[in-house]
């Protein structure tokens, strides 16, 4: 019991000691904002078209109205919502990460998801969940009293870990579902995918025509998705795992025409990077730059 208590205490220091990976976390946060800015700009004309014909059913309760105020606005004036949204994102991007900015960021992504429900895919829900966990990931305003400082650090580190767990869950659930499915285990899933006219890229040559390769593709997907949740925490396998993940999502982007999902998942990988990774990149670049 005492050993468990001591172990918990030492693990607990992870949360109370300091803000974990501040540089890497700040980069993750900023890239997530850039992704949202890109997404918002790209879907703006589409949303304008959708909102010309479609009305969003919104809640009648006051908390519901407050939470979905952006969607209420978009129901009547879609351009005003997107205009304000883009402007706010630019402000969030160029200011230091703070709680108010994070709250506004979550508010925007959540309303964007509701507005774009008719044209949304998995990427929108991943985005607003990451932005939800990101709310406590802020070091500003600086809290002066000691107890407040500790609470700020704990919330920051917890939120960072919850972001990582959220991403790991996505793979684990997908992998588990595929493992349970005979269609995936037998490789027939890729034969089905090849015939999905509204998803499968017709420009590509028929890559899922071979039964043998379909089984290989199927089991590679299952193994990658199931192992990600365990291996991404391992110091020596973390980076290769993320690299494989990037290739996996780029493949899905091209073959299944899912650019949004690929981009949000690759962006989410930044939450697994450490400050030391960026230091290594920096020194690698410095070594290759001609010395003056």
């Amino acid at each position, binding site marked *: 019991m005492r050993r468990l208590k001591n172990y*918990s*205490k030492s*693990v*607990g*220091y*992870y*949360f*109370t000691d300091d803000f974990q990976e501040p540089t890497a976390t700040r980069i993750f946060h900023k890239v997530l904002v850039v992704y949202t800015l890109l997404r918002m700009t*790209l*879907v703006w*004309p*589409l949303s304008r*078209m*959708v909102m*010309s*014909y*479609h*009305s969003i059913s919104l809640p009648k309760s006051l908390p519901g109205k407050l939470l979905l105020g952006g969607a209420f606005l978009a129901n009547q004036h879609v351009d005003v919502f997107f205009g304000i949204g883009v402007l706010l994102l630019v402000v969030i991007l160029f200011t230091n990460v703070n709680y108010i900015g994070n709250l506004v960021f979550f508010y925007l992504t959540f309303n964007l998801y509701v507005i774009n*429900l*008719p*044209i949304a895919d*998995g990427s929108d*829900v*991943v985005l607003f*969940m990451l932005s939800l966990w990101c709310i406590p990931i802020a070091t500003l305003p600086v809290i002066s009293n000691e107890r407040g400082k*500790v*609470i700020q650090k*704990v919330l920051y*580190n*917890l939120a960072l*870990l*919850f972001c990582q*767990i*959220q991403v790991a*869950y*996505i793979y684990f*659930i*997908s992998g*588990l*579902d*595929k493992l349970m*499915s005979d*269609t*995936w285990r037998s490789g*027939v*899933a890729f*034969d*089905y*995918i090849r*015939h*999905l*006219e*509204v*998803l499968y*890229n*017709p*420009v590509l040559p028929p890559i899922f025509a071979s039964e043998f390769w379909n089984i290989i593709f199927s089991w590679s997907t299952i193994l990658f998705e199931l192992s990600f949740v365990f291996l991404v925490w391992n110091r020596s396998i973390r980076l290769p795992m993320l690299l494989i993940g990037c290739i996996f999502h780029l493949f899905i982007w091209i073959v299944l*025409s899912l*650019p949004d*999902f690929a981009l949000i998942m690759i962006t989410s990988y930044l939450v697994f990077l450490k400050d030391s990774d960026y230091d290594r990149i920096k020194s690698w670049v410095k070594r290759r730059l001609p010395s003056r």
Partner: protein
Amino acid sequence: MGIAAVLVVFLHILFSIFVLLTPGKHNAKSLGKLYNQLVLLGPFFTESRIKTSPHLYISFKVKDTWSPFVDHGLANFKSYCEHPWRYGKLHYGDFERYISLQIGEQIRHKEFKGMGSSRAFRELNQFIVQEVISRQVDSVSLVYGLNVYLPETKTVRFDTVFKYTYNPSVIAPSKKL
């Protein structure tokens, strides 16, 4: 404080596993349901998602001549695949498929009260007339269904969900432009 944080993480993981192991056993407004929908995201490529693909075929009549049935959503998707920088084309068909799915669900649950009374149908009609056809037409014919691939025979079967031929001018617009 550190131990409390460890406990929160532990409970978060434990509760996620519990929800994962007890699917469909959580009330609509329970924490379990919330976890199921928001924390445990996915799976995104379920069997049902890859086994069928939705299609909406549209034909219209001008001066006693019917145009051929065309799946405009699919045509836009193909256009995106050939020109991947045309991002708008990728999601163009999503809206009509989303509304068609809603109409299909209303029919399935016997909630569809006729073309003029259904908000979803009015939205679909207005979208098709103004966005897809973009001209004065006498009649419109819609066929919405699912393409089901049969790997045993390597054939594709089309299952019709709804089929309507109507005069679009008698359907009230869903939103005033």
